């Protein structure tokens, strides 16, 4: 089965779960008499979602499907750098988890340096200064120009 049909199947399941949640939505006593309920539109949406997902699942594959669009060829999948991409995703997740504990400056310079290394950069004498300067510059911009507080230092330095 083609990838787009798998996705349609997943959305079908999501629509079913969403519809179930909407159907069993705990209405407040006084809400029951109203014409428009909090779950009116959700129920309609889940029905619509199921219908459209089924249409995609069972519609015959037209020839034009192969050509158009962004020109992403799934046959090339093996040439794709999936490892690098997963590495970047992991870096982003780590950044999200570490931003608060180790502070903005450390997290950001590690993130930029780490991502560049994942992409194959090995010139550390360029990489490290760029990462550090970026972290400080962005922190200064956000803090001073935009006036948004971000804790720069790790948790053990009280600031």
């Amino acid at each position, binding site marked *: 089965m083609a990838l*787009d049909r798998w996705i349609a199947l997943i959305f079908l399941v999501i629509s079913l779960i969403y519809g179930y949640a909407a159907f069993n939505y705990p209405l407040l006593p006084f809400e029951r008499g109203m014409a428009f309920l909090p779950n*009116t539109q959700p129920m309609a949406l889940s029905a619509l979602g199921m219908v459209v997902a089924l249409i995609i699942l069972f519609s015959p594959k*037209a020839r034009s499907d192969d050509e158009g669009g962004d020109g992403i060829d799934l046959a090339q999948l093996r040439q794709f750098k999936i490892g690098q991409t997963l590495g970047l995703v992991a870096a982003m997740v780590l950044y999200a988890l570490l*931003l608060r504990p180790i502070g903005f400056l450390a997290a950001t310079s590690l993130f930029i340096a780490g991502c560049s290394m994942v*992409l194959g950069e090995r010139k550390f004498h360029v990489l490290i200064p760029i990462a550090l300067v970026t972290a400080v510059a962005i922190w200064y911009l956000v803090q001073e120009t935009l006036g948004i507080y971000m804790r720069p230092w790790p948790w053990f330095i009280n600031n």
Partner: protein
Amino acid sequence: MFEGIVAGLSTALSVQNLIMVVAGCLIGTFIGMLPGLGPMSIIAIMIPVAISIGDPAAALIMLAGVYYGAIFGGSTSSILINAPGVAGTVATSFDGYPMARKGQAGKALAVAAVSSFAGGTVGAVLLFGFAPALATVALLFHSAEYFALMVVGLSAIAAFAGTGKVAKALLMTVVGLMMATVGESALFNAPRFTMGIQDLQSGFSFITLAMAMFALPEAFHMVLDPKRGDRGQQSGGEIKDLMITRKEAKAIAPVIGRQSLQGFLIGVMPGAGATIASFLGYAVERNIAKGEDQEQFGKGSIKGLAAPETANNAACTGSFVPLLTLGIPGSGTTAILLGALIALNVDPGPRLMIDRPDIFWAVIVSMYLGNVVLLILNLPLIPYIAKVLAVPRNYLIPFILFFTLMGSYIGQNNATELLILVGLGVCATIMRFADYPLAPLLIGFILGGMLEDNFARAVNITDGVSFMWQRPGTLILLLIGVTLIFLPAWRRRRAFARQRAQVRKEGVADGD
């Protein structure tokens, strides 16, 4: 109306806002030039900055500048290295790159800038006329018509998604609408569908969603497929000789005239934006051209360059008409702008012109200023800005990722938001591989709340759904919406049946 225009002029011409236009255009050009980063990603990244400005007029002026700059930057990279940063400028590379290969890069850039300027100018003049007229009509609308209008807008976006994509676009719209129901809303008493997650109490953040749908998939795609990032790296040559001769000016003048009108009208229609306008503009001009002129198309024709450039800028301006008058975005980019407006406490819609004339007119005036800035400031700077194309990918991609993370974090100050961003971004990348269009999801998400509000109001007034057929305006709009959805499906079915009939070769009559 006149006082409004004066108020808008004085707002737009204030020093602060002039700086905003210039800054927006420069930033937009700068980033728009990077291959793979479209205006939607750039605007999504710029929104936190715009919101923190606080003044809605200034913020919107800057974002509009970024939008124009990004389109212009996209044409620059199309011409110089045959790598369009933006879908709307793909048609530009058809003739722009061959011109650059012939050593006419400077001329090609000048033609692109002049045609963009002309397209934008005509667009702005038409906007002056169109927007107030449409806003006046829209003031007569009730919640029922609004509901119907949003249905039309959403179905048009699905219908224009392209062959074989209508159902997918529709599914994405529905998913966007579903995501809009998560969290608290003004209508009801308790948060819905939060799955017990505290951070979803206030719903998905629109900035996070915009980043996850546009910026992240583009960045991931550049990593996955390195060829995409640096295809056509061989530069089209040195940039010099920006002058256009009188003969060339004469040749492109009628093209510019036709395409600015056509582009604007296409831009006004929901769902059909700069991309369709530029391709259609190119196709129409190629058909109109005769003999040798037509032969030149695709080999460096100056007309073939002027057509898409004029059309895409005029369409960008046109796409502001539904945004400013109806509060309904016709494209992904205007959807992001709408989200920014809402975040700035501006209620877009027909009342915008009456309640906040300064914003309404200031935006229209500064769109024009944006075009002027692009022509007189950006064009001479292009040889220097083009240096950004030399930024190595190993640094470019980490920065893009970092800015998406930052944008989403600044908006919410919440680390969970970043995890949601990454998760949605990965899903969006996979969906993009399966050819699911992502803009409808965002448009559905942004319109979802308004759709439900108006739906609820209409239902409460008539105590049921009878408003759908009792109000003629609503009925007509809803019928248009349904037709828009079923027309492509019906045509596709017919084409499919015809194909099969031809395969069988049993002499079945063709069509009906």
